[in-house]
């Protein structure tokens, strides 16, 4: 292939990481950075042990604990014995295999997709994997990042490589300016509502356009985070000055002349003029409203002014049954708006929306207001560093004064593995990424939305169009 052939960002990263390629076999792809957490790694380490293998590159591997851990006082022992064993097993595995670990006592602990970027480990042009589907988050900095299963975790631990079939490319162009009250979360929810939860299957997304360029890096992470909810394992955003300013000075980025050289190399990464994608879609940012989901997958979303769709309008019988089942689970009537629907819980957190800018948005709305006293409102920072920054800015005081519960960092009620969970039948406006049945607790019912919509709904006690509270 000619060196002058215009290439996409994805193609540049992919082609720079091919270790071996044989006819009839998948590509052997080199992995620059492997992030590990307690839930999807124990069986992989056990596999290494059984085969007598080592971790090939501990210095390109990093572990932390986020899923099973409490978000109450983390200095106390974990009450759930099975969770405690899993967390202890990660400590044992990291010690035995020499893998760096940010334990609960560490100032750098946090949700794996929050700490990678904030430490400056996530960098443009890297290949990055983790046994976690929201690894797509890291694509916000121009890294090819995707989730893998536990067998593949073992492959990467042992060889620093993965066997991969080359995916196709899908440009998601978002042009124009977002209107007040509309955020990065609404962009991605609108995209998934449009293409469906399988719309990106087999593809790597690249988000382009003026609305994406205008987003700060943390907003870009929110967008890339939910690429997997559109079926795409990875989502990418080309690195630019916004990216470099975000990374400059972070602990793990190159320093001095090496920084300048790195930035120069990163500037070569964006998709060349004339490069083509296998598929593309355009979204008008100015036409977007705050989004909210009504159903049991992230594609079942509507603008806040919209109404719940009717199964009667669906032709295909399996699709009709799927929608009817979702509405039955959610206890919603077709044709009615969601705005005004009573809720019981608000969750502000998760790898989608637990960064400092998310907390600032929510705090800005809650300052001087009270949450509806009927509600339980959980605010869970994404990492110890986010927590520290929030404390420095006085955000916990704002949340507490409003009547929210300010917690310690972790995945918390996004996945409900740690005791933070909905009770059966409860409705929750959540800034997380999945509204699957039972995701936030058995029988719990989730409305996915932005931190602004969540904060507004916390105040009113019903699903709320945040724009009604912005003067």
């Amino acid at each position, binding site marked *: 292939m000619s060196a002058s052939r215009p290439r996409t960002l994805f193609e540049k990263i992919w082609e720079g990481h091919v270790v071996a390629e044989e006819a009839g076999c998948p590509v052997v792809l080199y992995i620059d950075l492997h992030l590990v957490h307690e839930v999807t790694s124990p069986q992989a380490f056990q596999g290494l042990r059984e085969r007598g293998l080592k971790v*090939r590159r501990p210095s390109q591997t990093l572990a932390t604990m986020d899923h099973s851990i409490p978000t109450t006082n983390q200095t106390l022992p974990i009450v759930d014995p099975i969770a405690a064993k899993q967390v202890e*097993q990660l400590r044992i595995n*990291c*010690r035995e295999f020499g893998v760096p670990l940010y334990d609960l006592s560490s100032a750098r602990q946090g949700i794996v997709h929050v700490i990678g970027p904030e430490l400056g480990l996530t960098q443009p042009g890297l290949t990055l994997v983790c046994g976690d589907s929201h690894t797509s988050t890291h694509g916000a900095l121009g890294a090819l990042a995707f989730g893998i*299963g536990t*067998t593949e975790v073992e492959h990467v631990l*042992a060889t620093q490589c993965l066997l991969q079939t080359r995916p196709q490319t899908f440009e998601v162009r978002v042009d124009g300016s977002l209107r007040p009250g509309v955020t990065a979360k609404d962009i991605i929810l609108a995209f998934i509502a449009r293409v469906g939860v399988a719309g990106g299957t087999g593809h790597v997304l690249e988000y382009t356009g003026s609305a994406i360029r205008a987003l700060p890096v943390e907003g870009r992470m929110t967008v890339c985070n939910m690429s997997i909810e559109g079926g795409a394992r990875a989502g990418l955003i080309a690195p630019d000055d916004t990216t470099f300013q975000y990374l400059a000075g972070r602990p793990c980025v190159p320093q001095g002349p090496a920084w300048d050289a790195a930035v120069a190399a990163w500037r070569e990464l964006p998709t060349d003029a004339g490069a083509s994608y296998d598929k593309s879609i355009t979204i008008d940012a100015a036409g977007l409203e705050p989004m909210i989901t009504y159903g049991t997958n992230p594609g079942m979303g509507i603008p806040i002014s919209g109404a719940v769709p009717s199964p009667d309008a669906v032709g295909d019988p*399996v699709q009709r049954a799927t929608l009817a089942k979702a509405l039955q689970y959610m206890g919603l009537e077709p044709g009615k708006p969601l705005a005004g629907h009573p809720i019981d819980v608000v969750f502000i957190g998760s790898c989608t929306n637990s960064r400092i800018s998310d907390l600032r948005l929510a705090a800005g709305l809650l300052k001087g207001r009270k949450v509806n006293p009927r509600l339980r409102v959980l605010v869970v920072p994404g990492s110890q560093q986010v927590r520290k920054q929030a404390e420095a800015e006085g955000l916990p005081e704002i949340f507490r004064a409003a009547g929210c519960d300010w917690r310690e960092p972790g995945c918390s009620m996004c996945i409900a593995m740690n005791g933070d969970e909905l009770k059966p039948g409860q409705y929750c406006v959540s800034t997380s990424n*999945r509204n699957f049945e039972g995701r936030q607790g*058995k029988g719990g019912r989730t409305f996915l939305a932005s931190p602004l919509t969540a904060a507004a709904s916390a105040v009113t006690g019903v699903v709320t169009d945040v724009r009604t509270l912005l003067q």
Partner: protein
Amino acid sequence: MEPITAFSSRVVPLPIDNIDTDQVIPARFLKTTDKTGLGKDLFHDWRYDVFGNPKPDFILNQGRAAGAAVLVAGDNFGCGSSREHAPWALLGFGFRAVVSTSFADIFRNNCLKNGLLPVAVDAATHAELMSLDPAAEVRVDLASQTLRLPGGREATFPIDSFSKHCLLSGVDQLGYLAEKIPAVEAYEQGHPARVQTGGGDKPG
């Protein structure tokens, strides 16, 4: 891993699209550090009531599911979480193949690493499978990449030749990767580590 051979089985229809891996195995069962023992919690929250009793109207609790090795589910099966516990739970129950019109990427990869066959068929075949007589059997043959319906008609299904070879011969894909270590070393010679994670707070 045992080599995959052709087999015949009754089918278990689950006519719902976009079944996510949280339904296949809810997150609270992921605190295990083992791969085994997950079959009893497969589709837990659809399968059991609040008291833990089997719900008689759920297909997995009905006679036709006992001993069946083929699950037929709606489109985009296995979306959402990357948890490999999903194929482990399906295998633990006794399934050897899942049939759908399409699969989520990570789930498909996880299946192929564990000897659970993801069988993607056309819409007409899928509809026929959904409405089969409960006692009817289909035959799944990886070697010929065919699924034979009770009437004798055969539908083909795709699989990449590498995974097919590994599954038919019972070969672990890590073996192939391990053979490539010289190429990995050569790559690392030419590409110094792009990032270093440092020691962590508790170096190993």
